[in-house]
Every structure is written in structure tokens, then in C-alpha cells.
């Protein structure tokens, strides 16, 4: 057990967990941030995706010891009121079915749009590689990503 200090959603947190605890369980079990989902624990589904400096990372692949001092944002803090362009686009395009994978998908999209403000289809495919939606909401996700991209580009102008 170690005391691990890290920043989650803008707040400094200290958690007492085993060094090898994957961040997904620190978030879910210790900090009760259950918007970050567990789907595989081996980095092949993307449900546990969170943001670090705007980049999408898989929290099941980050042991607590390596999370020390780092700064992460989970779906709960992307916006407090579903106002982030990606969340709005997801609602506008009626993306979700069961919804379970969607926090991870939305944050993956945020990471993509940070690096590619106007992504090609290939860039979308690549960013969402090994991101699994068993309900098959991909067609609407693609539309939502394009919609969010357009909004973000307008905001920047």
C-alpha cells in the first residue's frame, strides 16, 4: 500500500492503494467515479478511457504507481452539464444505445479532435481502434465526431 497523490478532475487527491492497482479501479472503487467503465482490463475495449492533458489514455493500463503526480479528467468533469461539444454532438446525433461504452468513446473522440480538428475517416477509424461498442453505434458516433469537430473549429475562430 502506498499513498499516491494525483489530480483528478482538477482536484488534488491522495489515495491509499497498492502500487499496481490499475487507475480504473482507483477511480471506480476508491474515488467512486463510476462513469469510467471496466470492460476488459487489457486495453482492448476502450471503456475505461480518460483524458490526460487532453489526450485519451486507457486507465486500465496505468498502474497507480505510474499515475503519481499526473493530472486526469474523467467523464464526470468533461463538463458538469453535458455542454462540451462532444457531449452535445452525442445527444444531437442520438448516438447511445445501452450507453455503457459511451463515456470512453466520448473521451476518445475528445483526444482525437485535440490532434485532428478536422479528422478524415481514416483518422476516426484509427482513433477508435480497439474501442468496442457491442450495440454498434459507430455510424452515429462518426456523425457526432464530425459535428463536434465543426463546433470546436467554430469556437476557435
Amino acid at each position: 500500500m502506498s499513498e499516491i497523490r494525483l489530480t483528478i478532475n482538477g482536484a488534488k487527491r491522495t489515495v491509499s492503494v497498492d502500487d499496481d492497482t490499475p487507475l480504473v479501479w482507483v477511480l471506480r472503487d476508491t474515488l467512486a467515479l463510476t462513469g469510467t467503465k471496466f470492460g476488459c482490463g487489457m486495453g482492448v475495449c476502450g471503456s475505461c478511457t480518460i483524458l490526460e492533458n487532453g489526450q485519451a489514455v486507457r486507465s486500465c493500463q496505468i498502474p497507480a504507481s505510474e499515475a503519481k503526480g499526473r493530472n486526469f479528467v474523467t467523464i464526470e468533469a468533461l463538463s458538469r452539464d453535458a455542454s462540451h461539444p462532444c457531449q452535445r454532438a452525442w445527444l444531437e446525433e442520438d448516438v447511445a444505445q445501452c450507453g455503457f461504452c459511451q463515456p470512453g468513446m466520448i473521451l476518445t473522440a475528445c483526444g482525437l479532435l485535440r490532434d485532428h480538428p478536422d479528422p478524415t475517416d481514416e483518422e476516426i477509424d484509427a482513433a477508435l481502434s480497439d474501442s468496442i461498442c457491442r450495440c454498434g453505434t459507430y455510424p452515429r458516433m462518426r456523425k457526432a465526431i464530425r459535428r463536434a469537430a465543426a463546433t470546436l473549429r467554430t469556437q476557435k475562430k
Partner: protein
Amino acid sequence: MITSRRAFLKTAALGGASLVVAFDTRRLLGAGKEAGQFKPNGWVRVNADGTVTLTIGKSEMGQGVRTSLAMILAEELEADWSRIKLVQASPGPEFKRLGTGGSFSLAGSWKTLRQAGAAAREMLITAAAARWKVDRAACSAANGEVVHTASKRSLKYAALVADAAKLPVPADPPLKKASDFRLIGKPTKRIDGRDIVTGAARYGIDIKLPKMLYASIERPPWRGAKPKRSQDAKALAIRGVQLVPCAGGIAVVGETTWATLKGRAALAVEWEDPPKDAFDSEAHFMRLDEASQQKGFSTRKDDAPAGSHAAVRTIYASYFYPFYAHAPVETMNCVADVREDHCIIWAPTQAPNSLQDEVAKFLGTTPEKVEVNVTLIGGGFGRRLAVDYALEAAEISRAVKAPVQVLWTRTDDMRQGHFQAASVHRLSAGLDSADALVAWRHTKAGSLHNLELPDPTALRDAAFFQDLSWGVYDVPYVIPSIETAYVTVDLPVRHGPWRAVFAPSSVFAREAFIDEVAHVRGSDPFAFRLELLKGPDTVKAGSLTIDRRRLRRVLEVVREKSDWSAAVAVRHGRGVACNVYDGATHIAYVVDVAVDDAGKVRVERVVAAVDCGLVVNPTGVEQQIEGGIMWGISSALMGEITFRGGAAQQASYADYGVAQMRDTPAIEVHIVPSEAAQPFGMGEPPVPPIAPAIVNAIFAATGKRIRRLPIRPEDLKAV
């Protein structure tokens, strides 16, 4: 006794839905108990604060029932859609047969929910008319208030709560005319969409109780396997970890999920080697293949009318359909808190009442001592009609005397599933001297994929085998002689309902073989289907009535919208398939594929047309078609479950592939206006026709006929 799946699902609909109900408000979604409310039945409650609380009797697993069922209630209630709250029904005296499956939620709830909403509306109108002392016929309701047009007076429902609550509940209230619908038929966004995109939506896996422990179960890899050795001391050295032998295997229980998973890894159970004759899927396919050539149990026999032409040549083919996993992203899980005299369960389940009954039986108590809270479900697809995860949670909670969450790992979920059973289909087609299709034979060899074994008397019942033969016996085509049959082959691994249950394998075989027959005759497969659908507008098959006119219409729509006859590039092809699901939902697809030189297939475009009866939420219909297409692409082109030494071999999405963004085609959905006065299901029907449309398109692209799923690139390499 469950005699057939259909009988089960149809009685699981709404449990009679008594109109006098008291129910527990301490349920999900935070609907609080408020003073002063009008609650004429279990489905509707009008609150004094102006909100309306609606009860959802179906499990939400992505099919949008929380939205569509609420739309039906709110429509008849004339409620203000922006002021709706929801509660999820729990088993109890008022809800005795909750269950979600068979694409039956809308069809089975339609009448009951309309009546429930209408009864409340009529009572509110009566209350307002009495208050104003006017003729109630001069009053009407809309958007959460009652209006007296003549005097331009109106009263919000909230103001009528106390008066309405004193009135008798009408048994047979008038229902709205379809032309007066304000909500039904309008594209409507998910009522819980905001919770989903903010991470607030709570699924089974998200339930946390004070002092809850976590459990992960090491289960035998093959049925009956015994542990050879395990490192108990190493597991127990992890702080807080305990080992609990249980019916399913060895439960590792810990204070956090991670401690539990580490404990399980440290335990390092080695299981004994399987016997030589342990289950093997390749050997099973050989048994199925052999069985498909037996006579079997007849599921349909249409003798050729006198004077019909005899077949002068017959073509044969066998189609192979593999095992599949459900692989929902939320793995199986359940929270149970077993106390001295009662038990509380939180479960992402499609079968709340059977779960309650089974857990009560297991604990040796009565169902009312088991409170079942139904959570959101992160993908059901039929897997969560079984209740094994709840029995595990109850067993372990009882043993450790604490609330326990059982969580399956991804590999548990992949290897220990209730798989879609494999089947082999033997078909033949007889052509007369003018090449007309005059005889059709289709024998399905498969396994009884109900959750429990049927009453032995059901095994003499044609209806039972017809259920197992959706897509086989309900051939929509006009063929003078049709004989279909079912052969049962024992299957010693767990299997159960999977999205579209019995239909995908059968429709794959039927719709691909029809294509083969068309090509043998040298006809266009589209024109051939339409030709075969001429004749009487309807045909009876078992208890189903197939409406050929509706099927023709959806086919004609996809032919036109897809520009069926337009030219395609080299190694590109276009294929068609259609189906009538459970005699209710009519679907046709045209699929365009490209096959590269390495044999990799890419589905480029799918044009869909559907007639699913009256449409409650067009957005939901489109979503289900898109999702069903992606599901079908997964099973046509990606993962299958194989068994060696009795054990499933796949461990995750890395070796059991499912469709991803890069596999997504352009999808066009056309909802064909229907004459039907009620809605039909949409969760399952989009699945069956996609795989055959893909193999038909591959034939058009390459001249190679695929008769086994999933499609393998090595079979399609360019020479």
C-alpha cells in the same frame, strides 16, 4: 413449465398489469415519494409538483425502452414530456412476470400501457369538469393540463391530483386515434441520454453498497473439471482476501476489485486435464453435418398440389453456422446482500422475476423475501435472461455475511458464456424442366437452446420445434412442395438465447441458398425473390402468418434505393436478403461489398427497408437497424467461439473479434409506412438477413459461394 421460448416471452410481457397497484418508490432514478399524488395504476403517478412518474416494466439494455414505453404512456396521459420521471419496475405483487426478450417489449406492452395512460387522463378530465361544474365532454387534456375550451379555463394536472385520486378507475377508457398522436411516431431523443454522456448512468457494475466485498470466481474450464493444485497461501497473503468454495468454482473475495483479481491470479488454479472425448467444436460440426441428413422432426410439409411439375434436377448444399458469444461490454455482474431474513439484489438482468424466484429457491425462502432492483444493462442480447450471476452473488454473500459484488472478467465472460449454439443446415431445391423451383427441403440440425430443458411432452410438439426453426419453416416463398425438419443434437456446453435466437443461422442458410438457386437458373437473385413472392398475399406457417405483400414492398424499396442494377467494380459485389421475423417485422437489405486480393471483405454500404408495424420512435427503429447490421457484420466476418478439450478458446475481443468503427459501412434506413395498427419488435429482426446478404454480395464479387461462417479471407484470395 416453460414449453417454448415464445410462450415464455409472451407470458413474460406484463403479467396482467393489474390496474390497482401500490408500489415501492425507493427504486432507481431517484423518484422520491411525495405527499399528494394520483396513482391510478402501477404505471402512472401524477405528482403534486407537476411532474409525472412513469414505471418502465422492461429492462433497458440499449433498445430504448425507457424512452419508447414512456412515450406510449405519456401519449395517452397527455403528459408534458419535459416533466417525466421514470422508475424501473421491480418484481412484486404488481409485477409478477417481468422479462425482456424476444423483441416483444413494444408489441406486448402497447395495449396495456395505452389503457393505463388513458385511464389516468380520463380521471383527470372528470376531476376538472367536476371542479368547473361543466360537461366533461366539453373538456380535453393536452400537455399536462385539462382545458375547457368554451370558458378558456385550464387546470394543470398537479392541481387535480387530490380530486382525481378519489375517482373510480375506468376499466375500459377510450384510447386516442392514431391521427391524434403527438408523441408516438415522432423522432424522439433518449430520455436518459444526458445521464449517459455525463457518466451519471448507473449500470449493475456501478452499484456500491457500504461494506460491500468483491468476488471473482475461478471456474472450471471444462464441465466437471476438478482443481489439481492451487496456491491458496499466496492468494490469502493478499490483504483481506478470502477463499470461498462455491457451486460454480472457487470464489476469491476481497475488499477491492483489484485485491480480488490479484488474489485470483495468485491462486493460480491448475485444473485437471480434460478427458480425450471432451467437447470439441470441429467434432461437433461433423455430428451436426451427419444429423442434418437425417429425417428429423417435421416442422412444415406442404405437398405439391395435383398437377404440379416434377423436379427434373435437384441441387444440394450444407450451411455451417458456428458458436458465438454475446460479449456485451459490461461483463456479467450482480450485487447481493443476503441478511438473516431477506435478501436485496441489484442486477443488470433481463429476467427480474425468474431471478427473484431462483434466488429465493436457492436461499430456501419465498420470493417476496428477495428484493430485486433492476439496473441499467450494458448490453443484454439474451445473455441476461439467465440468472447465474445472481445465484453466485447470493451464494457468496450468504457465505461471507456481507454485501458482495460478483464481477466476471472479460475472459470469464468470453469462455463461460451461454453461447449461441452451432447448427448445420441441409438444403435442397428441385427444379422442373422449365427451371421453376418446385421443391424446397431444409433440415436444421442444432441444439435445444432454451435456458432450461422443456417439458418432455413439448418434444412431441411441432410448435416447439418450429420455435427452434424460425427462418426454416416460415419460408415466405411460393414453392409447390416445401418440407422442413429439425434434428436435435446434444450439446454439453452452456448455450442459450442470443440476439435473434434461432433465426440467424436459418435465415443465413435459406437466403444464401435461394441465391444459389437463382444463379443455377441464371436469374437475377432479386428478380427471382420477387417472382417467388407472387401468389397469395399471405401464407400460414405454424402459428405465424407471413405477409408476402409487406415483404415485397420492403424488397421493392431497397431495390430502388440501392440502384440494384447499377454496375459495380471488379471484386465488388451487391447482394440481397430478406426475412419476416416471427411473422411480424419485415426487413430487406441490399449490401455492397469489396473483396481485396488477400480475401479481406469490406462491407461498403447497406441499404435497409423495414416494415415493423406502427412506429413509436423512428429514431429507435433506425438505431436498432444500424446496431443489428453491425452485429451481423461481426458474426459474418469476425469472431467465433471454438472448443478444444471441452473449453472455449477465446479470451477477449483480441481473439473474438467484433465490429469496430473501421468496419462500419454507409447505412441507409428506409422505414416503410405500415398498415399495422400496432408496433412490432426491432431489437432482433435486423440481425438475421445481414450475413446472407453479405455472402450473396461476395458471390457476386468473386464467384465464390461461402457456406460457413465466419467468412475466412483465405477462402477468398484472388488467384
